[in-house]
C-alpha cells in the first residue's frame, strides 16, 4: 500500500485499497460510521443517508463515495450527528416503532443506532401509519410497521437468492415494501427461510415466527456493547447460548397435520 492511499477521518489516517468506499475503509480500520441501509455483503444503496460524511467540505454518502488520496473526511461532528439524529427521528415517526414490545429490541440496528446517536425522543409528530402484518407464511412474519425502506431484503433476494421476492413500491412518502405475489401475501411467493433475504432485516420486519423473546435480556446483540463497538451485525446475532438460557423450542404440532 503506497503512502498516498490514505485519507483522514476525523483527523485519523485511514488506509484504503482501490475500489473501497469511505465506509468500507473506515470499517476495516475499526472506525464506526453510523449506517442502516449499508451492509458490506451487498452493493451499496445510498438511501438512508445515515452514513453521510463531509469529504473535503462537501456532504456525501460514505457508503457510495470512494476516497481520494489525502481526502479530509469529517464524520463524528456535532453538525453531522445532529443531522443523523434528525434522520433517525424521522424514521421513527414515519413507522410504528414500539421498542418496548418489539421482539427485535436489543437486536435492532435502528434502535441501537438511535442510542448511539443519543436520540432521546422522536421530536417530530408521529405519523401512526396504518400498516398491516403479513402472517400468511407458516415460518415467517412480515411486520410492515417497522420498515425503514433500507432495501436490504430487496437486494438480498435479487442478488443472492435470485428470486425477487421483495421490492419497494410507490414514490416518496408513499414508498412501501411489497412482496412478489398477486395476492400480496408472503405465503404465495417463493420465499424460504433459507433465503439470504430472511436474515438481513436490520429492524423488526422480517421475523422468524415463534422466536419472540427467546433470547434473554443481557445476551442480545447490543446489550453488552453499543453498535459502534459491534462488528457488522447481521440481524439477530446473540451472544452464544449459555447453560442457563433457552434454545429455540420445537414448533408446536398441528393436530391432524
Amino acid at each position, binding site marked *: 500500500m503506497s503512502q498516498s492511499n490514505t485519507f483522514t477521518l476525523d483527523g485519523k489516517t485511514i488506509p484504503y485499497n482501490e475500489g473501497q468506499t469511505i465506509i468500507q475503509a473506515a470499517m476495516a480500520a475499526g472506525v464506526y460510521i453510523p449506517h442502516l441501509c449499508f451492509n458490506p455483503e451487498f452493493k451499496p444503496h445510498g438511501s438512508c443517508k445515515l452514513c453521510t460524511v463531509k469529504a473535503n467540505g462537501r456532504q456525501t454518502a460514505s457508503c457510495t463515495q470512494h476516497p481520494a488520496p489525502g481526502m479530509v473526511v469529517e464524520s463524528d461532528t456535532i453538525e453531522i450527528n445532529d443531522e443523523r439524529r434528525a434522520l433517525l427521528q424521522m424514521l421513527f415517526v414515519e413507522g410504528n416503532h414500539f421498542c*418496548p*414490545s*418489539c*421482539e427485535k429490541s436489543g437486536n435492532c440496528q435502528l434502535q441501537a443506532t438511535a442510542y448511539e446517536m443519543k436520540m432521546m425522543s422522536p421530536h417530530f409528530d408521529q405519523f401512526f401509519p396504518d400498516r398491516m*402484518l403479513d*402472517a*400468511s407464511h407458516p415460518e415467517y*412474519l412480515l411486520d410492515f410497521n417497522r420498515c425503514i425502506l433500507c432495501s436490504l431484503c430487496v437486494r438480498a433476494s435479487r442478488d443472492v437468492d435470485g428470486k425477487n421476492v421483495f421490492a419497494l413500491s410507490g414514490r416518496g412518502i408513499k414508498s412501501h415494501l411489497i412482496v412478489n405475489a398477486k395476492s400480496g401475501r408472503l405465503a404465495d411467493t417463493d420465499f424460504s427461510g433459507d433465503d439470504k433475504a430472511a436474515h438481513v432485516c436490520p429492524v423488526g420486519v422480517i*421475523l422468524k*415466527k*415463534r*422466536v*419472540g*423473546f*427467546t*433470547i*434473554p*435480556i*443481557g445476551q442480545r446483540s447490543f446489550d453488552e456493547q453499543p453498535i459502534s463497538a459491534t462488528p457488522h451485525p447481521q440481524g439477530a446475532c446473540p451472544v452464544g447460548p*449459555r*447453560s*442457563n*438460557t*433457552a*434454545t429455540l*423450542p*420445537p*414448533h*408446536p*404440532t*398441528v*393436530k391432524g397435520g
Partner: protein
Amino acid sequence: MSSLLETAANPENLRRVAIDPLSRVEGHGKVTILLDDKNKIHQVRLHIVEFRGFEKFIQGRPYWEVPVMVQRLCGICPVSHHLAASKALDAIVGAKHLTPAAEKNRRLMHYGQILQSHALHFFHLCSPDLLFGFDSDISKRNIVGIAQKYPETAKRGILLRKYGQEVIRHTAGKRIHGTGSVPGGVNKSLSITERDELLKDIYQIVAWSRDAVHMVKELHHNNPELYNSFGAFRANYISMVGFDGSLDLYHGRLRARDENGHILFDGVDYQNYSELIGEEVKNWSYMKFPYLKSLGTERGWYRVGPMSRIQNCDFISTPLAEIERREFMAYSGVMPMHAPLGYHWARMIEMLHAAEMIKDLLHDDDITGSDLIVTGERGFEGVGVIEAPRGTLIHHYRVDENDLVTMCNLIVSTTHNNQAMNEAVRRVAQQYLHGHEITEGLLNHIEVAVRAFDPCLSCATHALGKMPLQVEVLNEAGEQLSSLSRTSDGILST
C-alpha cells in the same frame, strides 16, 4: 350486601363534592359525593375513568409478543400480566406441563413481584396513614415523614422492595418490564452467580417480612375499634387456591366463599371462568362490575386480593406464614374478617410467604436448570390466571392459524374489586363524613379505604404526599359555593 348510597333518590337538589383525581398514575380515579345542605350524604361513587385499550390493540399481533406487550398495562406489577399472559399462551404452544426449571423460575419471578409490590404498598403508600393517623399533619403523612420518625421502618421497606426487584431482574432480565417468561417456559434460569447473590440476603428478608407482619398485627391489637370497623362491609370473596387447598399465588383452582365463609364453589378449572363470572356495565363508570353469575348482579359481587386469599385457603405451605395465618384467622373468629384495613395484615402475611418461598426456591437445584421450554400440540385458545399482588388476574386469548391474536379479554384485580371499593368508600363516607364539614383529613379517610384495596389508585397519592386534589361544592344551579384544593406541593388553598 346492599348498594345503599349508590344512587341518590333526588339528586337534583344536592351538592356535589368530587375528589378528582384520586391518582395520576394507572389511569384516573375519582370519588364523587352528593350532599344535602346539612352535609348529609346521599350518594357516593368511586369512578375509574381509565381507558387502557389493551384488549383491542393486542388484536392482530403475533401471540409470542403478548406477554411482553400486555405487561405495559402496569408499572407496579407488570410481572403479573407477563405471567398471566404466558400461562394463557402455554395452551397455544401446547405446553401442558412446564419443565421444573421453567415453572420454578416463573414462580420465583412472581414471588419477587409479590414481595416488592406488597412492600411498596405497605411501607411507601400506606404506613404514613397507619402510623401517623388518617387526618394527621399532611406535610408529614408520607414516606419522607416515615423516614424521619421511623428511620428503621422506612429503610426496611425500601430494602424489602429492592430485594424483590432484584429477584425480578435476575429472572426477567430487568426490574420492570423484562422478558423472562415466554410461551411454553422461560428464556433463562438463574445462573449460579445470580442464585448466590440472592441467597446472601434472603434470611434477612424473611426476618424483616416477619417483623412487618408483627407490626401490622400490633396496630390491629392496639386499636381494634378502628381496625375492625373502618369502612367494613360484608362480601363474598374469591381467589385461586392450590390443588391441595394451600395458598398458591401462581397456579391452582378457583374457590369462592360467601360473606359467612361458606363455600360457594370450589375446585373450578379457571379455563371455565366465563361460566362463573359475568360483567355488568353501569352508566357512570368506565370500569365493569364483575359478579358471580349464580348469585346475580345484586348479590354476586365479591372481593379479591390478600384478605380473600388468606381466608380462602386451607393452609400456607411455608411455616412462618402459616403461624401468622392461624393467628389472623383466630383474631377474626368464627366469621371472616371483612374490614378493609385487614387487607394490610393479610398482605404482610403474603409478603412473608413470598420471602419464604424465595428462600426455598433458591435452595432448589431446578432453579439453575437448563431445560426451559416445552411445546406440544398447537392450541387456539387459552386462559391464564394468576394471583397478582392485588388479586385474581384473568387473561384470555384466542389465536388464529396464522399465529395472530383474534380476541383478548382481561379481568384485572381492580375490576374484581370495583363494587367492593365502592362499598368501602360509602361506608367511610357514612361513618366519618356524614353531617360534617368536609376537610382534607376527612377526604383522606376515603382514600385510606381505597388504598387498602389497590395501590394502582394510590401510588401517586402518597409517593411524596403530593397528590393534587380539588374539591368543589356547587349549589343546585351548578354555581360554586366553596372549594378546597391541594397543589402537588401539598399547599392547601380555598
